């Protein structure tokens, strides 16, 4: 190679021009600012006292930051008929149980579909793919009938069990298993007498870690946002998001509480996200699964 090699942190990098790096950085900064702005705005709004919240012209920064919105939110929530902690518990329970089941059941099925050749495999795989493209509005009616037949109306199960069978989670795991596991590794495991379950758990799952972390992040985020549901009537079973919605609907007087609660709603998925993403380290470097 005639040209001088560029390095980054003393490591040689290939095929990266300085001009390209520059252009991409500028693109990312501009787009990132646009993407991040609303989250910044939400936080800023939550820190504004009520008079600043309604100031004209509106400002993109806060002059006298205060946590009064947050304390007001907790105060309001404490006056609710069902204890505030109950709403939190419901949301946490639904999010954790739903995500966990989706991950376990989805990845088990994904392993069988993508790595074992058995009659019916193609049919099941295309049923999953096609069903993603059917819009859910119409299926609501039938599902309600099923739920009442099963006696699950007004229980947690009505929300958690469908999450276990969430198509996207299974499809995502299948995607990652197809792209990142070599056949030769599995064949070696089979020759050594490893059972399918063991191969799944000890060989495949560690390699597809980026896949299941992605699943955890988005599934948790979606379930965390569970608001009012057609299946739940009892106040004790309702979620944090629902409770917050009720408070915020109090209008202008509750505007401050509304801004605070939207930040609190975001906080937990963000924490899950950060823990998850910083765990997606260079899996391949250590596992050596690809030959």
């Amino acid at each position, binding site marked *: 190679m005639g040209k001088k090699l560029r390095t980054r942190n003393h490591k040689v990098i290939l095929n990266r021009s300085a001009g390209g790096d520059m252009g991409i950085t500028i693109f990312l900064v501009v787009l990132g600012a646009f*993407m991040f702005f609303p989250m910044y705005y939400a936080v800023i709004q939550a820190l504004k006292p009520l008079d600043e919240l309604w100031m004209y012209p509106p400002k993109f920064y806060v002059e006298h930051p205060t946590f009064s919105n947050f304390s007001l939110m907790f105060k309001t929530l404490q006056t609710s008929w069902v204890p505030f902690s109950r709403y939190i518990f419901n949301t946490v329970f639904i999010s954790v149980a739903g995500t966990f089941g989706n991950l376990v059941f989805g990845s088990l099925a994904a392993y069988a579909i993508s790595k074992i050749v058995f009659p019916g495999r193609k049919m099941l795989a295309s049923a999953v793919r096609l069903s993603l493209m059917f819009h859910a509005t119409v299926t609501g009616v039938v599902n309600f009938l099923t739920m009442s037949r099963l006696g699950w109306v007004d229980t947690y199960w009505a929300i958690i069990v469908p999450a276990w069978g969430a198509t996207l989670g299974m499809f995502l795991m299948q995607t990652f298993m197809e792209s990142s596991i070599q056949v030769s590794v599995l064949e070696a495991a089979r020759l050594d007498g490893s059972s399918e379950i063991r191969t799944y758990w000890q060989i495949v799952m560690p390699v597809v870690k980026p896949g299941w972390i992605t699943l955890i992040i988005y599934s948790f985020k979606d379930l965390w946002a569970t608001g009012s549901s057609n299946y739940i009537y009892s106040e004790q079973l309702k979620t944090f998001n629902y409770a917050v919605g009720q408070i915020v609907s109090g209008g202008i007087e509750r505007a401050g509480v509304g801004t605070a609660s939207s930040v609190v709603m*975001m906080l937990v998925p963000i924490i899950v996200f950060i823990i998850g993403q910083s765990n997606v380290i260079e899996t391949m470097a250590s596992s050596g699964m690809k030959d």
Partner: protein
Amino acid sequence: MSEKTASATVKENKPLGKKPVARKDMSKVQWVLKEMKRNYIAYVMCAPFFLIFFTFTILPVILSLYYSFTIFNLIEDEMWVWFDNYIRLFLDDDIFLIAVQNTLIFAVIIGPVSYMLSLFVAWFINELSPKIRAVVTLIFYAPSISGGATTIWVVFFSGDSYGYANSILMRMGLIETPIQFFQNATYVMPLCIVVALWSSLGTSFLSFIGGLQTIDKAQFEAAAVDGIKNRWQELWYVTLPNMKPQLLFGAILAITSAFGFGAIVDGLAGNPSVDYCAWTIVHHLGDYGGARYEIGYSSAIATILFAMMIGSNMLVKKILAKVGQ
């Protein structure tokens, strides 16, 4: 860089179980049964997921396909009417035709652009160190996390002079009176598209990032030796072929969200939007299924939407087959 060396750097990645043995002494049914018995563990592994999946996804879909040929209002028994619902949709429902047109406009713009945006941003930030990458990913994923974040855009483009956009434009002297952004048909569609793109870095974006992580670094070095000259060639000949399953996954998500577009319109311009200017198939579906209880008719709408998505998925698959060639 010839095509041959490029494809050689990408490993064959087909699932491969125990090799089926060709038998002449048994019929096909017998053979299938034997295979099923030998691979019983696969059915055990599939059982929990597919049991739930069939109950809550496949069953409603099949029933909905059936209802699309009937008139059904949830109270009386359904009445089989053959293709009446479909005929009514195309010959007797002007608003549906507006919805189809709007949906196609939204889908053609939002689908490809959001897909490309997810892919390129994921690829660009893949070279950052893990800690920084987590932060940058969060910045780009922020719109998806902040849930009902469309409200901020409602505030920003609010129709009175309290709206930021109006306030800024008025102070700059560009306009005299506030613009009713969400009540004016010329602004609604572009604004909806901008907000849709803004929130488009979602699950497929995350899966692209994950997919990039699973690519073996040695392949890039091998490719550089083979004569890959710059990052774009590397992307096309090495990176993308290695993450084809994720590309397909992202494509399906892009299609479903682009054709299923509607929630963002509700959040911004209300339902229905002024003069049906941003009325989509999903709105029409919700209108007949949720508000008028015409289950048969709304099922027919859902079936047409389904067919549109399948069609575009086949098209996208053909395009993705060309990746790396």
